[in-house]
């Protein structure tokens, strides 16, 4: 038994404590960055010893509350591996960006960011339902404080809405967890999977879990908290929120809803798929109508996460593997988009599309990155987004061609609004004096350094997807819903 996962999870907490104790702001920033880099390095240690098997790896299991059968139980498999790495990669970038721009209460800000990292890693690694719930709920606190303290105008409203919405959503999940214990006598995820729950319990418990995950994802119509939170959050907060936090919802579906409630999953698959498609189209259309660049990116998240859900509820290997990969892709591309918006905002203090235009002439490096990221997000072949979306659509087509067709419409809309945004910002005539070269400096090396790793990964995933998929596939293939191959669609149009 190794302690790798525990070290990984709690290294940021140690960092947070040290940061709080550090005497000067400069030192705090340096320490926080080092802590996130150290965490990233530790997470990379997962790769050398990785086995392409469906089982949990690097498992740690200790009695936490032996009287109640609650264990401190961590493990990582193909589904969570890349999400863990995504988290540990985005955190140093987010911290590096914050280090440049955050000026008040630096210590608390960085400590909260680090606590956030622990909470998110805990969510992805926990294999005991109670432990999972603890990390899941705890992740709310630092995020709400980050939004509420360091956000923009309407930050308090956004923070409270975010907190209450997601808290209320997960309340029933606790009851469901208790009900599962009542029926199976354990909180151990793997033991519960093999226990086989009665269908009646599955139905109710699935709904309770699904509500929590749907709000977090967010699935239409539970998405209303997201635009508010995104727009008001500080840039690094948005990066973490979009990049990692939303994945907790889809990850929850994969890790809990599908394996624990196969029967209920099959029953509700088409309903949720329909909601996902509505979300894809709705998110895209609303994004198209936005005049604020950050809102546009926020609504694009609703659409993109809809894709992930669509892939998951295709309930076949391709769909789910694509969904896992697409979670990572979305984390990278949306994270990068928020970074770019943030970089622009720090220079001009406005995010209105109408304020910009022709930036290619004044800030070419910025515009180049913007183009690449937009392309990745729109799913251009050769970049990461294409691989994920294509795999998802293949899976969806296999289970329901109509859904796949509607999904393709969503991709077209995505290309439209992203190119629309790019055109508004970078192309056209350079008219606004504030955007002239002498007034608007281009990206500096630090900012390039923040974006470069993400963009490199765009190409890496886009050109060598099998390196990533081969680690995802075994765990996905082992899922009961995938193995049973029972087409779970209630209404289906023959191809």
């Amino acid at each position, binding site marked *: 038994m190794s302690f790798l996962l525990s070290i990984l999870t709690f290294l940021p907490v140690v960092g947070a404590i040290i940061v709080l104790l550090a005497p000067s702001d400069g030192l705090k920033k340096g320490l926080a960055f080092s802590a996130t880099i150290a965490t990233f390095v530790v997470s990379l240690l997962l790769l050398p010893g990785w086995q392409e098997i469906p089982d949990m790896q690097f498992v740690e299991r200790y009695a936490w509350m032996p*009287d109640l059968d609650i264990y401190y139980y961590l493990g990582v498999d193909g589904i969570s591996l890349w999400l863990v790495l995504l988290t540990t990669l985005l955190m140093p970038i987010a911290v590096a960006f914050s280090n440049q721009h955050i000026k008040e209460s630096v210590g*608390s800000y960085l400590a909260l960011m680090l606590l956030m990292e622990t909470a998110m890693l805990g969510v992805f690694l926990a294999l005991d339902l109670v432990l999972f719930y603890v990390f899941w709920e*705890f992740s709310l606190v630092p995020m709400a404080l980050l939004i509420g303290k360091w956000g923009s105008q309407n930050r308090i409203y956004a923070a409270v809405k975010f907190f209450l919405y997601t808290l209320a959503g997960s309340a029933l999940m*606790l009851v469901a967890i208790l009900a599962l*214990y009542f029926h199976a006598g354990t909180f151990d995820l793997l033991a519960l999977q093999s226990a086989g729950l009665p269908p009646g319990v599955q139905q109710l418990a699935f709904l309770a879990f699904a509500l929590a995950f749907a709000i977090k994802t967010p699935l239409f119509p539970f998405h209303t908290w997201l635009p508010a939170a995104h727009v008001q959050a500080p840039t690094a907060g948005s990066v973490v929120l979009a990049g990692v936090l939303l994945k907790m919802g889809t990850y929850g579906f994969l890790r809990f809803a599908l394996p624990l409630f196969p029967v209920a999953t099959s029953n509700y698959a088409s309903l949720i798929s329909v909601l996902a498609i509505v979300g894809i189209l709705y998110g895209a259309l609303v994004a198209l109508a936005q005049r604020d660049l950050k809102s546009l990116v926020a609504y694009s998240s609703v659409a993109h996460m809809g894709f992930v859900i669509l892939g998951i509820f295709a309930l076949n290997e391709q769909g789910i593997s694509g969904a896992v990969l697409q979670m990572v892709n979305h984390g990278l591309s949306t994270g990068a988009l928020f970074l770019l918006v943030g970089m622009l905002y720090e220079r001009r203090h406005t995010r209105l599309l109408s304020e910009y235009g022709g930036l290619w002439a004044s800030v070419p490096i910025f515009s180049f990155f913007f183009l690449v990221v937009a392309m990745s997000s729109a799913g251009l072949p050769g970049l990461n987004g294409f691989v994920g979306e294509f795999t998802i659509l293949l899976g969806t087509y296999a289970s329901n061609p109509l859904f796949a067709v509607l999904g393709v419409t969503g991709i077209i809309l995505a290309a439209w609004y992203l190119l629309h945004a790019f055109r508004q910002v970078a192309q056209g005539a350079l008219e606004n004096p504030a955007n002239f070269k002498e007034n608007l400096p281009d990206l500096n090396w630090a900012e390039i350094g923040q974006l470069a790793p993400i963009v490199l990964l765009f190409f890496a995933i886009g050109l060598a997807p099998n390196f990533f998929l081969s680690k995802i596939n075994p765990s996905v293939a082992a899922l009961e819903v995938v193995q049973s191959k029972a087409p779970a669609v209630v209404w289906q149009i023959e191809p």
Partner: protein
Amino acid sequence: MDTSLLFDNAIVLLPEIVLAVGVMVLMMVDIGLMAEPENRTQRRKDAKAPREQNSAALLSGLTVVILLLSVGAALFIWSRPPAEYLGGAVSDGFALSARLIVLLAGIFGVLLSRNYLPAIERQSGAYYSLLILAVIGMMLMGTATNLIVLFIALEIFSLALYILSGFYRESARSIEAAMKYFLLGAFASAFFVYGSALLYGAGGSANYVRIHETLSSGGGNPSLVLPGIALLLVGFGFKVSLVPFHMWTPDVYQGAPTPVTAFMSVGTKAAAFAGFFRVMMTALPSLYDQWAVLLAVLAALTMTVGNLTALRQSSVKRMLAYSSVAHAGNILIALVAGTAAASSAALFYLFAYAFMNIGAFAVIVALERTGEGDVAQSRFDGIAERFPALAAAMAVFMLSLSGMPPLAGFFGKFLVFKAGVEAGWSWLVVIGVLNSAISAYYYLRVVVAMYFSDAESEPARNTGAGLNFSVTVAAVAVIVIGLQPGLWTGLLRGLGI
């Protein structure tokens, strides 16, 4: 009867005896302090205040020592097998842990009272004696196995608390709180004792076990049982502030001196619930089907009304009062479940609640201006800037009260809800869980005010060794219990009735 029987098993009551002896010592020391330097003060009138302070410090220190000795006595009995004294008091794990929670509340109450009020300073002998006497009454609630003892225990701590609520004699609010508390409390006592009388009539004895024996064997007068239970419930409902018997709670919490409120909110709850659990689960288990439904409805009502009313409060003390109503509803779920696991879950809940609630009141004490008697929520605006440690502690208490993991409050709720689901009361647990989500809003509001709002004026805070110590200990305890609940659940194993 052989009189030596009177002393058999008297050790069961050792913690109470320690306190009773302690009160006498305290009162004598108080008299000694008052009498001795009379001549000198005549000569130097200006030296009067420091002398008063010195004697107050001495008396509060002595009180803490007495309470700690009682803790020691309780731990000492814990190492011995459970025993019963004359069919009136028992020393099992449940009784002992309930006693320890009460003692904890008492110690915190003393620590918070130092330097709080000149009124307390001037009459510190009486104040601390009453506090210890209240602790004796509270400790006996969970210990009693006899309706007579239970009733007297209830009256001891109630009377002491009526007086303590009105201890701030200069404040009309404090006295008014005392009067409202007294009138409604005495009214509820009448119901309580009427209920006890009918149970005695039903079972032919005031002893719980004998009542149970008579009723479960089909004897006695069963027709008296249900009205007896209903009336008893009114009495307990008043003490633990269940809806609709909660009207006194906000007024008394707001009007009473804050250290008294802190002590009372936790001590009364722990004591009354301990007594409530023991009566229901040892005297009336044969009627579980009847009373469980009744209590379930009350629990649902209590949680919902408590939380919804708390949302509208602008005074932090009143908000905490309604929150305590809601928490009573949560704990009641454990009684509805009615299993041994549920009663130890309730103990854990009360244990966690002791730290987080007293901690919250300690922060209020820190922010209260002398003699003001209340703190509006706006007082918390922006205090995180000036007092980061205090704000962080308050945030911990608020989040724990709202049931946010991984803090103590979460595991309290978790255990109680788990017991509820296991006993088949899922609908009630769903209501409880939804209520905790509602409650997050008003607890969060305090956190938001502390961290996100701008300070309206230069904030000030009270300090004091006891106060700082209480806040720190409570905050650390809430976090440690939250991170390592296994330790405490292990200790509480087998403590249910």
